[in-house]
């Protein structure tokens, strides 16, 4: 069963913040976040393992609430290069197999 992402689309001005959510009805081992530009492959952003950790690099961070089976991706002070479609990919509780079930994606557009 695929995770559900919200919102479906976001339009921001440069410098604004955004939050993208990923929710699963099943227990999760890990959540992976990817960004995809039009016509390109998904690019890995970060992985969160069960344990409720929060990760981040630069101005992009994410959290994973294992009990709620939810993850959120935080984009702060957005840049034009952040535009693209963001996918969360989830691994079930017997995870660490690398098999990811992806959400439907959230399209982010950053305008000058």
């Amino acid at each position, binding site marked *: 069963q695929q995770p559900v992402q919200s919102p479906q689309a976001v339009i921001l001005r440069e410098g604004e913040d955004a939050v993208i959510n990923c929710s699963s009805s099943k227990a999760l081992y890990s959540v992976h976040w990817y960004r995809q530009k039009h016509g390109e492959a998904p690019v*890995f952003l970060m992985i969160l393992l069960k344990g409720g950790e929060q990760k981040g690099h630069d101005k992009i961070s994410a959290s994973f609430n294992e009990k709620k089976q939810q993850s959120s991706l935080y984009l702060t002070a957005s840049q034009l290069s952040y535009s693209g479609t963001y996918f969360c990919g989830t691994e079930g509780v017997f995870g660490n*197999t*690398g098999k*990811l079930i992806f959400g439907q994606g959230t399209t982010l557009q950053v305008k000058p």
Partner: protein
Amino acid sequence: EPEVTQTPSHQVTQMGQEVILRCVPISNHLYFYWYRQILGQKVEFLVSFYNNEISEKSEIFDDQFSVERPDGSNFTLKIRSTKLEDSAMYFCARLEQTGVAFFGQGTRLTVV
């Protein structure tokens, strides 16, 4: 960024024809995956391949699909009799020890 190389980048084929998509890892990995992305939609898991055997496959991966590693290096996805609905981007991915899946640049398959 570590990647796998996929060939061809674009393949146009007639309905009913067989196609072979290739994935060349940059180093000797054991875990490989094929994913599919129909235009404008989410990334979908097709099959995982571990130690030269299929370890898991999705409902999409029916008898028309097969995977193999014929020479111990290249990793191939074969579609025996293509249908119009097979038109999509096909991504090969490999699993790092960290649990992160890195995607190749993809092959765009167009069935006419």
